[in-house]
Structures are given as structure tokens and as C-alpha cells.
């Protein structure tokens, strides 16, 4: 009773978020969950890479070694991608877009290493959607001024303003839900394969990992950053 059919098939279907421990903060019970732990691990990996990259670039040589080559490759690739979309605004947003690109990419492929991907928690992706939302509207007010923002809201006619406003609010929600649902579907499907087909899941789930973790994760990272850049560029562009 109270158990779904899927959940009663095997006790070891496990893709939910678990609490690790809880503490009291201002009368509220706050849970530290597996998502926090996985975000921390991803952050530690990125920080270690950054420290190593910093050292490698400080002692850079004209003939780059292997690691320096990798660092330059990553930075050049990100710069090219961001410059291609944002044009003259790219120097300002290079840091932010590069950071979220690397973070989302590592989070998505962390499923390969046995972690639960942090981006399969709506809290994480919604936070990134909110950041995009704030950036869009901050830059809209900065570049288009209040007059331009109001003109954009009343785009064909002033009666359209509520619909345009709903469209603005839908941007971070659809951005974050897209990333979340894609990663979650991969996580759930792999958990189901491992739990329900545990007798015959020997080597072939590797192909599923390649698709769901590597391919889908990389595509969704690209899409999230691309859409963020497009929205920000639109907000920065004035009519003149």
C-alpha cells in the first residue's frame, strides 16, 4: 500500500534526492542533501582545475605543454562561442557565461562518475534561471533606459503589455525546466535500467551513459548558455 508499481519492482530504484543531515536555523529545519554534496564535489574539481590552470599560465612557455594546451583550448573555445553570439558585448559577459558553461557541463557529466547530477535538482537550475533573469532585466534597464523598456513592453500595442510581461516571466522558468527535465530524464532512465534490468545490465548501459550523460548533457549546456547569451544580447541591443 502506498507504493507505486514501479517502486515495488525493486527496492533499489534510487534517483531521488536524499537528506544527509539537517540542522535548525532560525526555527526552520534545513536539510543538507545529496545535491549540496555533489555541487561541492563539482566545485572542488573546478577549483582544483583552476588553481592548476593558474599555475600553468603563470609559468607559461612559448612552446605550451600538454596541460597549458588544454587550458588554452578551453578558453579559446569559450571565447569563440561567446564572441560569435554576443559580438561587442562579449568582453563583459565572458566570465559569467564561461563559468556557468563549465559548471553545467561538469554537473551534467558527473552522472558518469556515480554522482547524482546536481542539475537534476530544480533548486540548482532555477537559481541559474533567476541569475539569467536578473542579468536580462538589469542590462535592459541599463542600455535601453526606462523609456526603451516600456516601449518594449507595449510592443505592438499597449494592450499587449500583460502578455509581454508573462513572456518575460516565462523565460527563466522555461530555461531552468528545460535543463532540469533533460538531466532528470537521463538520471531516471539509467536508474530504471540498473534497477529493473540488473541481471542483464552488464556492458551495454555504457552506450546509454554516452548518450544521456555526455551527448545530452553537452547539448543542454550549449543550449542553456546559447539562450542566456541571446536573451542578454537582445536586452543590450538598442534600436539606434
Amino acid at each position, binding site marked *: 500500500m502506498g507504493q*507505486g508499481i514501479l517502486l515495488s519492482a525493486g527496492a533499489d530504484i534510487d534517483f531521488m534526492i536524499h537528506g544527509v543531515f539537517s540542522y535548525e536555523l532560525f526555527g526552520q529545519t534545513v536539510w543538507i542533501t545529496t545535491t549540496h554534496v555533489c555541487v561541492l564535489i563539482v566545485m572542488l574539481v573546478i577549483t582544483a582545475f583552476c588553481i592548476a590552470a593558474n599555475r600553468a599560465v603563470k609559468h607559461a612557455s612559448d612552446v605550451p605543454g600538454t596541460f597549458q594546451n588544454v587550458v588554452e583550448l578551453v578558453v579559446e573555445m569559450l571565447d569563440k562561442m561567446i564572441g560569435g553570439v554576443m559580438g561587442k558585448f562579449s568582453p563583459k559577459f565572458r566570465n559569467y557565461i564561461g563559468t556557468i558553461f563549465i559548471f553545467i557541463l561538469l554537473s551534467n557529466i558527473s552522472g558518469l562518475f556515480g554522482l547524482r547530477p546536481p542539475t537534476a535538482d530544480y533548486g540548482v537550475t532555477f537559481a541559474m534561471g533567476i541569475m539569467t533573469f536578473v542579468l536580462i532585466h538589469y542590462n535592459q534597464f541599463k542600455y535601453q533606459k526606462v523609456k526603451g523598456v516600456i516601449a518594449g513592453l507595449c510592443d505592438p500595442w499597449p494592450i499587449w503589455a500583460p502578455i509581454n510581461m508573462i513572456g518575460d516571466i516565462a523565460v527563466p522558468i522555461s530555461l531552468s*525546466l528545460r535543463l532540469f527535465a533533460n538531466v532528470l530524464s537521463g538520471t531516471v532512465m539509467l536508474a530504471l535500467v540498473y534497477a529493473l534490468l540488473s541481471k542483464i545490465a552488464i556492458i551495454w548501459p555504457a552506450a546509454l551513459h554516452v548518450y544521456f550523460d555526455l551527448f545530452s548533457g553537452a547539448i543542454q549546456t*550549449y543550449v542553456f548558455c546559447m539562450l542566456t547569451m541571446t536573451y542578454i544580447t537582445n536586452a543590450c541591443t538598442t534600436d539606434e
Partner: protein
Amino acid sequence: MGEFNNNFILGCSAIGAGLAVIAGIGPGVGQGIAAGHAAAAVGRNPGAKSDVTSTMLLGQAVAETTGLYGLLIAMLLLFVKPLLP
């Protein structure tokens, strides 16, 4: 509660989840059309292959969103079980 017990609600939730993922038809058709047009564009202008591919992937991922909403509804019905009393 008579015959409308938890198992009945769970069964109906499972049927609802199955109906919700029918939303995947739309994005499937749309992504196929996008991929077909992208293939035609590459055939016409093979030099623009990388640009066409990235544009196609971006458009497909955006078109996928509606299907993912259906998937989310199915997940909520199956695993969060909001209809249980």
C-alpha cells in the same frame, strides 16, 4: 473510503502519466522536420555545415521543451504522487 482507495488513485495516476508522455509526439515530429530541413540546407551549402548544425540543435532543444513538460507531469504523477490523500 470504499473502492476509491489508494491503489485506485495510483492506477489512475499511472494512466495519467502514460497519457502525459503522449506530449512527446509533437516535439518528435518537430525535431524531425528541423533535422530534415537542416540536411537539405547542408546539401545546398556544404560550407555552412557547422553553423547549420548548431542552429538546428538549438532549435531542436527549444522545441523539445513542450515534450519535457509532459515528461515532468508524468514524473510528478508517478513519483511525487500529489493525488494521494
